[in-house]
């Protein structure tokens, strides 16, 4: 038995909240993407040669999308669950006849949907600056969706774990942002010295960006199969962790 009504209202009212701040929701990614293009694409990019046959301005598009997708998925989902915890309104969700499954589908689904829309907006904005050709639209969509869902789940875990606003910001700031910048968002790993190439292979975000980039240009640092496997594993690990958190009532019911 699944409480579909609960999933529906959680999803609906989470989306409604974004709708109210629509301007902010759309304007900020459009502006920041444009800025990246002006700075990296036009100013610096004109001095950088093509990377593996792709002009620099085009090359950074997948990395830019991933950068926003990761940070926004985490921010959306962590805030969505942290805030009710913080204000106390979570009592209602806890006292309702719903399982962790419905809570997660509602909140994580909404957070992932929002960042998916964001990813599409960024791609459209990028398309204004450069000519984008997507070699494998299906694989690209798969990466987009999987990334949104798994990082929204990860954000949800952070939101459950965080007991204050500092902790809420801690992991995105200290872990995610560096991993994204060092994961080859703005360069190809092959441009690094050999030692750093090896170190970078331990960065999970590299696999994401590499696979995503492959779906555009058929250019990759690691094989696409490995990329998909890594993101799949990450998704499963997050699911297991959330399941455990709800099962034990972690920081919610004790």
């Amino acid at each position, binding site marked *: 038995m699944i409480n579909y009504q609960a999933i529906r*209202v959680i999803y609906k009212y989470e989306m409604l909240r974004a709708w109210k701040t629509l301007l902010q929701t759309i304007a900020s990614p459009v502006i920041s993407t444009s800025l990246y293009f002006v700075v990296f694409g036009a100013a610096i990019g004109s001095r950088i040669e093509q990377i593996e046959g792709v002009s620099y301005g085009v090359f950074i598009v997948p990395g830019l999308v991933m950068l926003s997708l990761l940070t926004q998925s985490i921010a959306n989902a962590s805030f969505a669950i942290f805030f009710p915890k913080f204000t106390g309104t979570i009592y209602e969700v806890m006292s309702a006849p*719903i399982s962790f499954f419905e809570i997660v589908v509602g909140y994580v689904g909404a957070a992932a949907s929002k960042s998916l829309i964001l990813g599409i907006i960024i791609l459209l904005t990028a398309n204004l600056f450069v000519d984008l050709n997507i070699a494998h639209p299906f694989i690209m969509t798969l990466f987009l969706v999987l990334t949104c869902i798994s990082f929204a789940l990860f954000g949800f875990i952070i939101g459950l774990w965080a007991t204050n606003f500092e902790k809420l910001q801690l992991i995105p700031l200290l872990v995610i942002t560096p991993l994204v910048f060092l994961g080859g968002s703005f360069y190809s790993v092959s441009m690094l010295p050999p030692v750093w190439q090896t170190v970078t292979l331990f960065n999970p975000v590299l696999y994401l960006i590499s696979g995503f980039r492959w779906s555009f240009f058929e250019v990759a640092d690691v094989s696409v199969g490995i990329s998909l496997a890594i993101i799949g594993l990450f998704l499963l690990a997050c699911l297991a962790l959330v399941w455990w958190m709800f099962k034990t009532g972690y920081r919610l019911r004790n």
Partner: protein
Amino acid sequence: MQPIVSIQSLSKVYDSGYQALCAVDLDIFEGEILALLGPNGAGKTTLISIICGIVSGSTGSVRVAGHDIVSEYRITRDLIGLVPQELTLGAFDTVWNTVNFSRGLFGKKPDVAYLEQLLKDLSLWDKRDSELRELSGGMKRRVLIAKALSHEPRILFLDEPTAGVDVELRQDMWKMVHRLNDSGVTIILTTHYIEEAEEIADRVGIINQGQLLLVDDKKNLMQKLGKKQLLIELRHSIGQIPPELAQYELETSADGAHLIYTYDTQGERTGITALLQDLHNAGLAMKDLKSSQTSLEEIFVSLVRAQ
């Protein structure tokens, strides 16, 4: 009769190590109004939170309508509505959206007519499009009640419903409680105001330091523990009590025109007949007689002291 809520040796130790409930046993019956009375920190909110699924119990069990609240939580939570102690509401949702959200959370299909009537009953209909942050404290309390009733629960918990509430809302609330109760809804409310329990409840449970000291019908409780006082108005004031009446431990009023006799309603004999006879023998003429019962307040104070 099978209880609608059955609590068996329920204990709660918080992660901090604090024991908030010690082996509480309590049966709540369908259709009654039960008041849980106890000072701040007694464990009232903890007890309610466990039954509603917000906090997990450490040991013991709770059954609602015969179903276990842990393994059959979908059935039990469906039957329960909760009005929390704190005014915990989102800021930017509208009244209409928040009650629709609550109804959906509990798995019920949207029902515009029902929610419209509910908001009208709570004088919230005019405010349906207002954002929650624009509402006064009293209005927020009404919204919390509307949310709790949005899924048509059979059992309603009200956690300190009148804390910080004005007279008008208080009266509205009691009217609503009686109306719901008449339609068969079981009501459990917590309070640390004794008058409140006395005013509204059928039964009263007294809780202190995590222990349920006793539960009884309000009437029984007062009879069982209550003392009665007999106020005797004399035709003529007296300076002091005649020695032959010493055994009755009478008190006199300041003006000497009244005598107060305190007796135990549980006692085999109240001693009233003998007292009246002795008064007559001592030559004191009575003008009037009045008896009064101890308030719950006094019962409560004596119980908590005895602990």
